[in-house]
């Protein structure tokens, strides 16, 4: 990328206002592949183990060990390539990227440079205003993750946990195609949706399963050359990514308008404090002296493997969204959310199929289910109300066994584990809709007696105001029935009595 000095940037109407600047964003994303073992060893990759209990001799880089490539890591990387319409390179060479850091025991990271497994591809994103945009993927390569350094006080030393060392990653590199934080976040979410749908990553961002490096530069609108970029590393939530971009754009514009230069550097952003700082200058650290790893032979990808994987490809989010809209009659917005996450989509489809009502299923998954999951900070796979249970509940709403209000009560009871299905709770708690005229009438009479003053006010009011005022009585009567009375019948009978 070419650099631009401030003097080249300055124009007669300097300084420029914020809307005269254009932001250019490119991303590098590290995606941990959901293999059971490391990329070059048979040690487990399970998250959360005791430190160094999943770091074997190969991961530790002990003398005399040799790496052996995990077939599943190759398969998963290929699936990603197929998912973004990319070329798959048939001949794969692993290279050594040399640098010294204690969480990299071998003194080099085994990665790919000249011949990455996934070539150029593209990802479509949908923005808030409904417009779409294509983000080009430059390439994606396979590599190994490093371990973790813990800088808490160990008597003035650092602690090293190498469980993560050797975990397979694909590093996905985009072209600088995004122009603001919204586009970058939309892309990040879409990528999350793609890798979880493919089943090649668990998508657990808080555990570091997807980590974003954000390259940001600014330039006056209309200028062709790119400004000097900075790279903010290791962002592991969409929220932090957005905040870090907004902060960096503002910093760069302020800096240039004050006559300064943006320096090409690596930066760190702390989401908890919303602070960013420079990490290190890249000049010397950048000399990685790559060379082909002599311990690993080239990995050849045969057509038979490609064809087998192609046949295993799941329905991708874009196709799923289109199907939800055309076949199930969902809105674009609802279909976008439901298709975005593999587990959510599967949950929704199960509930929709069993209950036979896609719209109600969509409303419930996006409504009560999402609300309860968020409130308890759990994923849909951990939901105490299963798709089957939700379908059973929806069936009882559809066949008029219960009112909408009671349905929420049944849902809460299911969530708390008060019964194994909706029918059991409806029976046990006697929640069937009351459609018995005598029972509703006596409830209404009680409400009218208890609210004599409001009845008088109602009757004194002109007819056009009455329709609003009747809501009060409906509310009282529904409350008296604990939400079980048929709202239509209550409305009808109240009107008859009050207008009599």
């Amino acid at each position: 990328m070419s650099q631009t000095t401030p003097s080249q940037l300055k124009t007669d109407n300097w300084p420029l206002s914020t809307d005269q600047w254009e932001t250019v964003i490119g991303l590098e994303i590290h995606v941990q592949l959901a293999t059971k073992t490391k990329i070059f060893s048979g040690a487990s990759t399970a998250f959360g183990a005791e430190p160094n209990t999943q770091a074997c001799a190969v991961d530790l880089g002990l003398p005399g060990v040799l790496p052996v490539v995990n077939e599943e890591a190759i398969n998963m990387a290929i699936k990603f390539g197929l998912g973004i319409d990319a070329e798959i390179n048939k001949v794969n060479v692993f290279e050594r990227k040399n640098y010294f850091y204690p969480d990299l025991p071998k003194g080099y990271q085994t990665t790919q440079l000249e011949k990455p497994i996934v070539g150029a591809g593209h990802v479509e994103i949908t923005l808030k205003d409904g417009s779409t945009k294509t983000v080009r993927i430059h390439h994606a390569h396979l590599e190994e993750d490093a371990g973790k350094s813990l800088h808490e006080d160990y008597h003035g030393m650092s602690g090293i946990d190498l469980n993560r060392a050797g975990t397979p990653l694909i590093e996905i590199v985009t072209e600088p195609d995004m122009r603001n934080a919204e586009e970058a976040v939309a892309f990040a979410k879409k990528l999350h949706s793609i890798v979880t749908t493919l089943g090649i990553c668990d998508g657990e961002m808080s555990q570091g399963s997807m980590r974003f490096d954000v390259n940001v530069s600014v330039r006056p609108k209309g200028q062709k050359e790119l400004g000097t970029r900075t790279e903010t590393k290791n962002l592991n939530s969409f929220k932090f990514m957005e905040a870090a971009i907004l902060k960096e754009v503002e910093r760069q514009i302020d800096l240039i308008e004050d006559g300064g230069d943006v320096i090409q550097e690596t930066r760190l952003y702390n989401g908890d404090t919303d602070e960013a700082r420079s990490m290190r200058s890249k000049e010397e650290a950048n000399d990685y002296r790559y060379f082909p790893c002599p311990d690993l032979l080239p990995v050849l990808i045969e057509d038979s493997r490609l064809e087998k994987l192609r046949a295993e490809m799941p329905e991708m989010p874009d196709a799923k969204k289109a199907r939800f809209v055309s076949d199930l009659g969902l809105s674009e917005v609802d279909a976008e959310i439901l298709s975005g996450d593999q587990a959510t989509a599967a949950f929704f489809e199960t509930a929709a199929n069993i209950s036979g009502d896609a719209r109600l299923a969509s409303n419930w998954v996006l409504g009560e289910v999402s609300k309860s999951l968020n409130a308890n900070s759990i994923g849909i796979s951990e939901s105490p109300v299963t798709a089957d249970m939700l379908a059973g509940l929806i069936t009882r709403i559809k066949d008029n066994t219960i009112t909408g209000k009671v349905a929420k009560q049944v849902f809460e009871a299911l969530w708390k584990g008060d019964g194994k299905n909706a029918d059991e709770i409806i029976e046990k708690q006697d929640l069937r809709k009351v459609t018995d005229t005598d029972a509703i009438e006596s409830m209404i009479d009680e409400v009218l007696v208890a609210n004599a003053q409001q009845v008088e006010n109602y009757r004194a009011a002109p007819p056009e105001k009455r329709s609003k005022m009747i809501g009060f009585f409906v509310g009282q009567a529904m409350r008296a029935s604990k939400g079980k009375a048929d709202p239509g019948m209550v409305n009808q009978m109240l009107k008859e009595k009050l207008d009599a």
Partner: protein
Amino acid sequence: MAVDASEIQKVANLARLSIDESQLETTADTINRILELVDQMQMVKTDHVEPLAHPLDATQRLRKDVVSEENNREQLQSCAPVVEDGLFLVPKVIE
């Protein structure tokens, strides 16, 4: 292509090799002789030769994704100078 003493120092630093200052010139001379050999090899016409990533004419065998390594922390850490709470301790590194 030739390197001088300052480049030797830089590369030595990147490779974490300690070379005594008095040895820098001699080391540069030695490495330059190797580079001359490389220059000589560069003269061979290789227009129709595929670049070679590995001297063996073979391809990598792949391994099934099955856990084969047990926890062997105690033994593997027995050669480490300092260990605490299962962690290897190293001189403080802060980015």
